[in-house]
């Protein structure tokens, strides 16, 4: 789970491997805030699979790649 200078850099780094998913760094920041924002809250409770999937879905991260087990 890395940051890259551009799509060209990702492709070169993959070197023929099956690509995963690429999103903008702005979308990543949104995802991080939704996913980790409560992590230091005294009222933290484990996220359910459903809650985590809802975070992905609400950010438009759809499809098999983003489907949690």
């Amino acid at each position, binding site marked *: 789970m890395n940051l890259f200078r551009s799509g060209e850099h990702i492709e070169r780094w993959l070197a023929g491997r099956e690509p995963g998913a690429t999103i903008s760094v702005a979308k990543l920041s949104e995802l991080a805030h939704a996913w*980790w924002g409560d992590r230091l809250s005294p009222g933290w*409770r484990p996220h359910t699979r459903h809650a985590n999937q809802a975070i992905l879905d609400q950010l438009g991260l759809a499809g098999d790649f983003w489907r949690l087990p």
Partner: protein
Amino acid sequence: MKEGNLALRNLTYARFAELGRAPTAAEMAAAAGLDRAEVIAAWERLHAEHALVLDPATFEIRMANPFSGIPTGFRVQADDRWWYANCAWDAFGICAALYQDGRIETSCPDCGEQLRIAVRDQRPDDESLLFHCLVPAARWWEDIVFT
């Protein structure tokens, strides 16, 4: 998750945020009024529930996501302290968990160029960068260190 484990988990995270590094089992024992073996036993239960990740050799904290217990290629500065993150997602996650603006330092794995990103009001100052996730969500916890 049992309340006792949850309380130790919350205390562990609070100490991680405060120290800028993973608290040791001995430090947590002193903080929680437990002995070290009790801390490790509770941490093992939290590890099984994916609430943190232990080093299998030392039983110390390897990950308390988004924080990393070991140095990585993702450093985050916020609130006048530094932490290591496990990955790019977690680097932003540290700013998110702290509710702080911050600065992320990493490098492009392809060309090695250093990347410095300021996060202000939850937004990165350089929006030209791309995030790539190699492992599908269904397999993230098969090997969370690789993921």
